[in-house]
């Protein structure tokens, strides 16, 4: 299963962008589109204005960051949770449900109740594969994927059945009231409090993994269950179970934040597959929560730019999907190629230049933080 990855160095990212741009321009020319218009729309759509950045890029980044965190946390413990998508839907369903039915709560309590419900629902959705893993030994990769399909159909059932809007016409719920909505962070933009929450969670999770004993246990179990148990006296099943649920809760929160910050109601197709993109977000971030903030924003920008590319350069949506794939593959490929170039078979010359006994490049003992692994 995936190895931990360090944050790709800047020039890998830059190289990947250049490579993608070149390949994309080639493709666009072949498809008969204007590459210059398309690429500049891509950039402008993501970063072209304050509003583009705040209201589009960052708003799109929020669910990616939250699900990315969910995936990163799980993968850190060696739990291959591919089910963020389903957990997100579960969280969205629960969030809307509470937002609509618990409106008798005092205003200050409603929003926390909504988000709390989405956390809980995400964790509950993760409970099934977690139990199957721990009690029955069924691998979670498949069960979480299956749970995704079930959740999507469950949402589709909810908006036609128990939670359908009061008029009973459209397959959607009523909108939750203002007290159940996340406040806007910047007036006049669409940027909502969910972004702040996501940033805080990134920092929190980073600190948790880096500083806390429980976070260390998570990493140790991810490193080797056997060693964690023998040397660390860590109860790995507990750690795995708790991490699985926490990961589900984070993904569920992504759903809750989306409905209370952006859509205010539950719809079908709430997510375009954020839970899957989250895997790329997490892995390209080297499973580092701070990195997730960066890669999540990057993918948010990419999707924002892609929308603008459709609108102002007339590039069809299918191209946009292809672009996303291309970027991921280019980053992955270059990252890996770069690693290989750094540690080549015939690297003797480069290394011989080092004075005898001098520390190797990987030795960062002096400047690294506590725990000195790339938390």
């Amino acid at each position, binding site marked *: *299963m*995936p*190895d931990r*990855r360090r944050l790709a160095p800047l020039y890998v990212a830059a190289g990947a962008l250049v490579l993608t741009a070149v390949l994309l321009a080639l*493709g666009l020319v072949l*498809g*008969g589109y204007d590459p210059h218009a398309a690429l500049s729309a891509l950039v402008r759509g993501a970063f072209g204005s304050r509003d583009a950045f705040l209201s589009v890029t960052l708003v799109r980044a929020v669910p990616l960051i939250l699900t990315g965190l969910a995936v990163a946390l799980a993968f850190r413990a060696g739990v*291959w949770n*591919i089910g963020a998508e389903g957990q997100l839907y579960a969280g969205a369903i629960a969030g809307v449900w509470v937002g609509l039915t618990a409106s008798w709560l005092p205003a200050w309590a409603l929003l926390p109740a909504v988000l709390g419900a989405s956390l809980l629902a995400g964790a509950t959705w993760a409970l*099934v594969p977690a139990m*199957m893993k721990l009690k*029955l*030994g*069924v*691998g979670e*990769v*498949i*069960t979480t*994927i*299956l*749970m995704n*399909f*079930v959740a999507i*159909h*469950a949402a*589709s*059932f909810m908006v*036609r*059945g128990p939670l359908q809007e009061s008029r009973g016409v459209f397959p959607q719920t009523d909108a939750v009231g203002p007290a159940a909505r996340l406040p806007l962070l910047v007036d006049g933009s669409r940027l909502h409090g969910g972004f702040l929450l996501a940033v805080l969670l990134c920092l929190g999770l980073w600190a948790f993994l880096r500083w806390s004993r429980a976070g260390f246990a998570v990493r140790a179990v991810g490193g080797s269950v056997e060693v964690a148990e023998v040397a660390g006296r860590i109860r790995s099943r507990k750690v795995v179970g708790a991490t699985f649920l926490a990961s589900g809760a984070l993904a569920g929160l992504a759903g809750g934040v989306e409905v209370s910050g952006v859509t205010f109601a539950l719809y079908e197709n709430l997510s375009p597959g954020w839970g*899957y*993109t989250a*895997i*790329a977000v997490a*892995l*390209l971030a080297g499973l580092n929560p701070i990195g997730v903030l960066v890669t999540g924003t990057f993918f948010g920008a990419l999707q924002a730019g892609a929308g603008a590319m459709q609108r102002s350069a007339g590039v*069809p*949506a*299918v*191209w*946009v*999907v*292809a*672009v*996303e*794939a*291309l970027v*991921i*593959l280019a980053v*992955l*490929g270059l*990252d*890996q*190629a770069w*690693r*290989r170039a750094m*540690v080549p078979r015939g690297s003797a010359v480069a290394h011989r230049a080092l004075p005898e006994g001098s520390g190797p490049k990987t030795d960062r003992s002096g400047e690294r933080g506590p725990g000195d692994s790339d938390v």
Partner: protein
Amino acid sequence: MFEALAWVAFLEASVRLGVPLALAALGETITERSGVINIGLEGSIIAGALGGALGALATGSAGTGILLGGVAGMAVAGVFAALAIGLGTDQIITGTAVTLGGLGVTGAVYQARFGVTGTALSLPTLDRWSVPVLSDIPMLGSPLFDQPPTTYLVYALGPILWYWLFRTSWGLELRAAGEAPDAARAAGVRVLKVRAVAALFGGLLAGVAGAHLALAHTGTFAENMSAGRGFIAIAVVVLGRWHPGWVVVAAMFFGAASALQFLLQAFGLDVPYQLFLALPYVLTLAALAGWVGRATAPAALALPWPRRR
């Protein structure tokens, strides 16, 4: 009489829905046995569907279309293999990206060829072959033995791949690459080559599965017509415990669960249809809980190799 008809209808539908899954899952079984999980299967399936459609249109022959579909699926798997096996990138994320890319690129090619607003494409379809004696068996005959040739490909591949995996030196090397690549290499197995071949083979069969959808099942191509079958095929591999024989059975089981959903709707059960749609997934989960138990995946599955230092 009526019940018998329903039963035959159910069996037929199960086989029809199971065959593309079985094809893709058999290929993925070989890929996973070599230690590689290719989540990009969906990309190979949709590419196979488009490749098959274009091939059949160009040559007027559905058979050629199936072959070209296989080649298209293999090409997509080739991109996956170049990155995930050649460069050693993470398999899950590479596969996810390849799925996206497959869906995007087929869409773009389709629109380039048939116009932005698409067309209701009518393709030549594979003829059914009726197996002489077998197709006359009451109840079972026509559902199982009066089918397009791709169905018989599944029947044949089950035992052939079983033999190949467990009774040949190639199979032994392939499984060794998936269980303990270091040991396999020490024994002289060219692990990367074996894995690349296995991934390409998986892509080939996924491509054939897609071409079957277009040329044997529906007679048309539509964007996204693979509709998640790649992911289902991966679940089918687990359900079939990485064993070609059981994988075919598991694919048919999933086909049956889907068929049930349409039959129940046709018989007018007044239950929300989303519950029917979720049925195959819930049944698969139940089956995994009940029967797969601790059946273990190939030990080196999804681990990049050689290990990065």
